[in-house]
């Protein structure tokens, strides 16, 4: 404060009449108020940082490093899987001209990939976004009520499928037959990915999908009430063209064997 105000005030006092002191006095008061705010916020920030630091044990730090490392490994594995899948598709596309049998087989492969969520798709649909409430948690209230829970996402997805959605992704994670939406504390895992809010659910489906979704009991029963009561951030929008990426992950079973193979 001294460094900011002293030179200006000194110059004013020496070279100007008293009537010109008023604007400078106002300015000095403004700066003083601003610096008081800085001090206040800085003190809160410093105190909360200390509290968090004290709470973070060395075991937590070790585990957090493991999570970060596993996430990095996962990103690398997913990239490799996507590249290998693309190469398999290239082999199949190259072979389409080879024979009628191969041609037919590749058509079946393309249709099966499309049906089960292994193909990038586009089409009309809806975007649903949900995020934590911005309300201040009142004393005595459970803070968990004010954040998006895994049940909210499941209810939204259930309502979308039940309303006729043909393809759904959550923050880019395409939902397939083996997908789960799983909560670990306040965090959410979809497929293999650790997701954070804002959650963006994109669904491709026939006309009227948004209206059917909004009226569906799976949406209205629980999540719609939480949105209203706790102020979860929520928005929906119909879209004429969405693009959903394919599922990236393992599609090979260890335990389940296709029946015709099992019979052999």
């Amino acid at each position, binding site marked *: 404060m001294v460094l900011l105000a002293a030179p*200006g005030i000194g110059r004013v006092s020496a070279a100007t009449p008293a009537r010109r002191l008023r604007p400078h006095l106002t300015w000095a008061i403004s700066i003083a108020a601003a610096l008081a705010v800085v001090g206040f916020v800085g003190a809160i920030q410093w105190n909360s940082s200390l509290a968090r630091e004290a709470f973070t044990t060395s075991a937590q730090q070790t585990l957090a490093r493991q999570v970060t490392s596993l996430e990095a490994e*996962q990103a690398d594995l997913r990239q490799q899987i996507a590249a290998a899948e693309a190469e398999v598709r290239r082999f199949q596309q190259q072979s389409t001209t080879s024979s009628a049998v191969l041609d037919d087989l590749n058509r079946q492969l393309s249709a099966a990939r499309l049906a089960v969520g292994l193909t990038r*798709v586009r089409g009309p649909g809806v975007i649903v976004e949900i995020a934590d409430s911005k309300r201040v948690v009142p004393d005595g209230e459970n803070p968990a009520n004010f954040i998006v829970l895994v049940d909210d996402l499941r209810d939204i997805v259930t309502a979308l499928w039940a309303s006729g959605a043909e*393809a759904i992704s959550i923050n880019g994670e395409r939902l397939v*037959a083996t997908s789960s939406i799983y909560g670990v504390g306040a965090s959410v895992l979809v497929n293999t990915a650790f997701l954070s809010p804002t959650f963006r659910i994109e669904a491709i489906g026939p006309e009227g999908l948004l209206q059917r979704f909004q009226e569906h009991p799976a949406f209205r029963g629980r999540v719609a009430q939480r949105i209203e009561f706790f102020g979860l951030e929520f928005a929906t929008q119909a879209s004429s063209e969405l693009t959903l990426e394919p599922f990236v992950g393992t599609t090979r079973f260890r*335990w389940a064997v296709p029946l015709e193979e099992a019979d052999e």
Partner: protein
Amino acid sequence: MRSPLAQGSLFGVALLIGVLLVGQLRSQARPTEISQLSAQELSELVDTLGARNRELRTGLADLRETLRDYRLTGTQGQSAVDVGREDLRRITAFGGLAAVQGQGIVLQIDGDLDAIALNDLLNELRNAGAEALAIDDVRITHRSVAIQGPVSLLIDGHQVGRSLTISAIGSPDGLLATMERPGGIIAQLQQFIDASIVATQSNQITLPATEADLAPTVAQPIE
């Protein structure tokens, strides 16, 4: 006030306030940043991510095997057909378009189960590593959800009675342990619903292909 020094000072103060306010708001956000999760949550996350990464590594190894087969056979002839057929078997089994068989667990449920509970059970089985699922004789696909119908629960348009069976193919030990763990899904549900849920391991479960037509009508493929 008009001097460059004064303006610069004002800018500096405003910037500092902005930075501190952002920091403060972030510190009040939910603990989704890894560093803010509890040790228990982190431990669970490490286990889950570790298991998922193992699955991904296995899947990648299998994919590379398929690629090696393609490279060996070239893109023509009977061998390429065989590789393609194998790929088709894999994809149709994965998505529920083909019948499958294997070990796993069977949940026998008797009583009043609501749609949320049934969907939660399916989700928990998937999370525990179930590869294929069916409710009674209805194969579960990515689009299958239980909803409350006029007289009973419905799954893919089929009625589900008060007595039903959920069959899951996967590691029998892993699936059973997850479902029956203290505080797990079965324990939770039995506090809120009037139904008995009995889980047993099975060496041979056969699940049919879905009867639903999963071919999209509005979603178009992008090659």
